């Protein structure tokens, strides 16, 4: 598996995971009622990637909305990335938030406080 991609829907984000390039992108909205089901394939793909991780891994997260059901799953994804970072691939998580969206910035900072991986907070103009 070199790529794991799914398209976005009104309730779930698009995911583009290029395992060869070491780039993971999550974009859109994450507000499904059942987020465990949605995030499981991504967590599995990260497990696979962990065994042959690139020297550097870049993660771009650009969410417009996410619900609390997704928040634990996103933490699980970040914990996998923490393990990959520990295993020798330099992981960077770029957390995007829209100008004025203090709640989204704060959510990124919450993860930053929990996860031992470098975070970059990136402001996007609407």
């Amino acid at each position: 598996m070199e790529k794991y991609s799914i398209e976005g829907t009104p309730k779930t984000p698009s995911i583009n995971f290029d395992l060869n390039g070491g780039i993971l992108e999550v974009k859109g909205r994450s507000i499904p009622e059942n987020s465990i089901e949605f995030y499981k394939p991504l967590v599995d793909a990260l497990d696979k990637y962990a065994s042959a991780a690139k020297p550097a891994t870049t993660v771009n997260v650009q969410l417009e909305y996410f619900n609390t059901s997704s928040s634990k799953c996103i933490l699980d994804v970040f914990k996998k990335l923490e393990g990959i970072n520990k295993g020798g691939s330099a992981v960077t998580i770029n957390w995007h938030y829209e100008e004025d969206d203090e709640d989204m910035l704060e959510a990124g900072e919450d993860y930053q406080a929990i996860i031992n991986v470098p975070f970059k907070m990136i402001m996007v103009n609407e």
Partner: protein
Amino acid sequence: MDVFDIYDKMERNNILLSFKGEITSDLLTSILQIMENKMDNMQEEPKMKKKVYNVLVECLQNLYHHLDEITEVDSEKIRSAIFTIGKVDNKYSIITGNYILNENINGLRARLDEVNSLNKEELKEYYKRILNNGEMSMKGGGGLGMIDIARKTGEKLDYNFLEIDNKVSFFTLNIKVSNQQN
């Protein structure tokens, strides 16, 4: 049933949208879409729009998940819930009502009171602790919804339990979303 009376009450309370019935995933998708269009048409400022949308998602998904829990109980009406969304003086109100088993009241009340006892900083710490406690409810939320609503609105959770009979009560949650800095 006096339909004008319902209309008049809704008009006077500036209700934008109201629903009573079974809460399904498809219904929530539609409701969120309608509210998003309404706020766009009202030219709501982006910051307020985001806050209302976020809080609405949590409130409505709370209803959705809790109706699941109550299926054991025989009565049909018990699977149904109500919510209204209104706007008065630049303040949105989201009110939800649903049946709850009496045996679950104490647990819920304790969680709500705990959230209400915390200030902004304490809520942030509490959120992070629950987020990172490794527990996952079947639905994935694991008790973060109410904390998130309190954090995003900056207000205490206003709730009530109305006892219906010895089995069930009616639980109402009255959430206000305003633009004030908190």
